């Protein structure tokens, strides 16, 4: 090791060491305000009311809680797939645009992000209720005979959540699509590839990092979604976060709420590990 004052013996300052130093403040912040409380939540789930896995036995031993967890995963999956289907063509259009057109399209993508999730969820309530816009429209077009009861219901939850999550799918897609080198597409063209092959064999594979980032963001966020399912979902579609809030806040059953929260966290982590394996570490979330 270097002696004090011996300048030559000091390890040289590198960008790498600088980066590591920059990680200290956020790392400390997360340690104190995130990991420590999280650990306490996890600890509570096995310590109270008595030491053991009784709370977990309650989670997995009864039909309704397992069903809620399953519904949560299923809903997050549906929302992710719908987002991807809607976002891909839109992101393609934005990625190819330039100038004013690009700015305009970006505004359309970003404006929903600037509006509160609560307000947007209430907006969907107005659309879906019996005396709402959608029912008025269906009736006046003669598509339905009577007013449909869509609220609370899974359709409303899916639509509301897709609306809210869409920008999180579009933005990574745009980023990765704009990074695609267009000379590669031209080369394919010159070599005689028809449009669909240029897309399927050149553009699509090159856009996959964006797809995988978007899918991860939307799916993980959807798993813990609270406001929209709380407002639009009925008892038939209860999501885990809504159930946890009910146990923690209304029943003050914190040990059980902790067990539910820990279970959701473990499921999310497990799914993420599977996802990393499937994308072979190519996810841009990991910087590659």
């Amino acid at each position, binding site marked *: 090791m270097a002696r004090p004052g011996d300048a030559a013996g000091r390890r040289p300052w590198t960008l790498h060491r600088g980066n590591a130093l920059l990680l200290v403040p956020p790392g400390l912040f997360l340690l104190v305000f995130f990991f420590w409380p999280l650990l306490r939540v996890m600890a509570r789930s096995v310590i109270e009311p008595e030491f053991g896995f009784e709370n977990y036995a309650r989670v997995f031993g009864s039909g*309704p809680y397992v069903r809620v967890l399953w519904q949560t995963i299923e809903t997050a999956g549906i929302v992710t797939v719908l987002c991807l289907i809607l976002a891909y063509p839109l992101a393609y259009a934005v990625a190819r645009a330039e100038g004013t057109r690009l700015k305009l399209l970006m505004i359309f993508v970003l404006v929903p992000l600037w509006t509160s999730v609560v307000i947007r969820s209430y907006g969907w309530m107005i659309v879906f*209720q*019996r*005396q709402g816009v959608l029912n008025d429209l269906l009736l006046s077009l003669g598509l339905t005979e009577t007013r449909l009861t869509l609220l*609370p219901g899974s359709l409303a939850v899916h639509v509301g959540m897709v609306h809210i999550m869409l920008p999180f799918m579009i933005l990574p897609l745009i980023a990765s699509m704009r990074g695609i080198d267009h000379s590669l597409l031209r080369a394919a063209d010159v070599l005689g590839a028809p449009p669909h092959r240029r897309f399927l064999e050149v553009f699509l594979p090159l856009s996959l990092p964006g797809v995988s980032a978007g899918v991860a963001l939307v799916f993980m966020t959807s798993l813990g979604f609270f406001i929209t399912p*709380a407002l639009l979902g009925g008892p038939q579609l209860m999501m885990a976060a809504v159930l946890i809030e009910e146990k923690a806040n*209304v029943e003050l059953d*914190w040990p059980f709420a902790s067990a539910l929260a820990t279970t959701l966290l473990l499921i999310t982590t497990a799914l993420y590990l599977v996802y990393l394996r499937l994308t072979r570490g190519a996810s841009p979330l990991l910087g590659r």
Partner: protein
Amino acid sequence: MSRMGNCGGVDRRTLIKSAAAATVFGVVGAPRLARAKPSQMVISTGGGALDDAYRAAYFEPWTAKTGIAITTGPNTGAKLKAMVEQKAVEWDVSQQPAELAATMAKQGLLEPLDYSIIDKSPLIKGVAFDHFVMGDIAAYHIAWNTKLVKPGAEPKDWPGFWAFAGRRGLWKRPYQTMEVALMADGVDKDKLYPLDVDRALKSLSKIKDGVYWWERGAQVAQILIDGEVEVTAAWNGRIYDPKKSGAPVDYHLNQALLVADAWVVPKGAPNKRESMEFIALALAAERQAAFAQKLPYGPVNGDALKLLPKETLAILPSAEENLKRSTFLDVNWWAENGERAEAAFSNWITG
């Protein structure tokens, strides 16, 4: 919590502040016995119209009498639990739904009330408990949309509600909803407890598909006014105002289930004596009568009822005539059996 609204998470900032404050005052604070009168007290409430009525009927007279100012904040139940666990209690008094107060008492989160300071002799039967005392009484009752339901066609009682051909709303919680399901099935209103959970669920199964399960108090008035449902179970505090301001809604208190707000003192509250004195003031006849003229929630003090005009008494759940045709929710039954009933209800409703 759901009855009067306000459903937030624990406010982390306040928690940290209160923890910091507790550390400081824990060290330099004067010994309990020798301490001076506080200059300020914190009372947490459900907010909104309820908070306004409390302010006029209780808080301002309290400050006028004692010189102690009152600040209010949201009464999130989880926050009370967190403060008590961290031994950093910043609330002197809190208003809680009585069934939640019973749960808190069972979990050891509350100070016992000092009935040598709080006079329980004028209180009506069944409102005073060891760790909480009811402060005003509301009703879970039948309400309907007057545009969609012809005059006279509204359900007269819960069996009528069950037989009603139309869209119905119920609260998506086992409390209260199981009680009315049993009354619908013919159980006498005075013989509801101990609740027959299986029978309640069987009764609910008869109407399950056509029910709009609402969750929050603010929501029930809205879905009724919007015609999302034709009839619904609702709380009088939510329906009375829209009715008065001309919305197409009406209600009656026949077979109503009486539910209450309760005053509690969190364990380790900073100014216990003043907390008890405040509750004593809030239960005094004159103050209770003043409150009942602000909101249609009935007094718990029998003498307060004598101070009120007939028109006001007619809408108050705890007035004698209304008491006869309604029944109290048994908060202790729920504190003891809530978990089991809750699990059965969740299982039933998601199944």
